[in-house]
């Protein structure tokens, strides 16, 4: 068993895992099946938020999404027995969300595009501070698809909006133009106001 690729076994089991039936939470996590079969748990890693809260998450999930964590595991700087990865610039709330994103995308990577997009849209239904925090975390951890997702969302916050709306959405209280410059703006882009 140790020679088998753990990840592919994981996915195989995932495909066969028992789904919830009739509201009852009858669910066999693949790792428990594996535990039962192999007697050893799937590797988990510990992430520590800036608030010193520890989150346990499957290694494979984080390795798939975060370049930073992947590098740490590969170059051996992470010791499974004792270490935790300190993420001092990510607070608990954000870290939980990031883990949520990575976990969902690993578990559901076979879902169809529409369902994934719908989940992503729901996932990003946060206020602008939350969005910003997520962006910082995704940048720090180098989670490319989450970064692209958030950039796309910000792009949509700008797309097709009038200038006054953009200022409101991004909470720009002082635009920094002189009155003459602002008037020039209005003349040059009349249909954007």
């Amino acid at each position, binding site marked *: 068993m140790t020679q088998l690729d753990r990840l592919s076994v994981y996915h195989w089991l995932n495909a066969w895992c028992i789904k919830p039936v009739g509201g009852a939470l009858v669910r066999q996590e693949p790792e428990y099946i594996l535990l039962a079969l192999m007697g050893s748990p799937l590797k988990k890693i510990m992430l520590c938020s800036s608030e010193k809260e520890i989150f346990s998450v499957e290694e494979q999930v984080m390795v798939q999404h975060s370049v930073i964590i992947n590098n740490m595991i590969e170059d051996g700087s992470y010791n499974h027995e004792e270490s935790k990865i300190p993420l001092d610039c990510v607070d608990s709330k954000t870290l939980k969300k990031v883990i949520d994103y990575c976990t969902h995308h690993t578990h559901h990577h076979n879902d169809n595009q529409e369902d994934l997009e719908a989940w992503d849209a729901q996932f990003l239904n946060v206020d602008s501070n939350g969005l910003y925090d997520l*962006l*910082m975390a995704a*940048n720090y951890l180098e989670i490319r698809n989450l*970064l692209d997702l958030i*950039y*796309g969302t*910000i*792009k949509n916050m*700008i*797309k*097709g*909006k*009038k*200038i006054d709306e*953009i*200022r409101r959405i*991004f909470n*720009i209280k*002082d*635009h*920094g*133009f002189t009155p003459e410059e602002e008037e020039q*703006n209005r003349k*040059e*882009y009349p*249909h*954007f106001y």
Partner: protein
Amino acid sequence: MAFEEVLKAVFPLLDGADLASCMAVSKQWRDIASDDYLWKCLCSNRWPSMCKRPNPPSVTYYKLYQTFCRRQHRRTLLPPRISFDDLEFFIDIWAETTLLFSEVVPGSVLQPGFKIPPSGVCDLLKFHLEGSEYKMTLPVEPRFTIPAGQNQNVSVSVMVGRKDSNKVARIINKSMFDYIDRSSYRALAFDYLDISPVYPFLSGIRAWISLLFMEDGNEEVIDVFGIQMDFCDVANSKEEVLWLLDMLDWK
């Protein structure tokens, strides 16, 4: 990661209109959005050939994009180079060989409409005089009359002189008042303008001159109270008329 870097990552995803909006959102946004590389990318999507040279065809790719991708605004006319004060009109009206009217009319006297038409003017004509198209009007005091038998052969000539260069141009050579509109009491004549060779390809622009006459019962006589001139083919405002006059073949 500063917010600036976020913008730097998002701006390349925007299209031209949205990026142009960003230029006006705030000074910080403008500094980032005016990176010509962003505009070069937009230009290369729109006109790939224009990005093949190392340098942009116009000063910046931003300027190139803005100039040619903007919505078409109504082209505004530059201010005319002459004013009516610089002009005088030489108007001569004949019935056969008899001179009915011969005056030098300073440009400033011509107005775009009668302030108070004399009584006896028909309503349709009054309505026309109040119309929005720009027509230069000259009240005729004292009024002259055209005897009935001769109103087939009334002709007009109009020349114009300008004080700034002491040159003269022709507006109407010698045209007959062929068309008499009895319902609105106007007799009309026209001629094609000679435009200066500096502006080639312009032909077929007419000057119209109308004699405005009174509505009285007498069909025998045409009682002219005003003369009107317009260039309604192309010029319908004071500025447009002045430009057109400036473009005549002045000699």
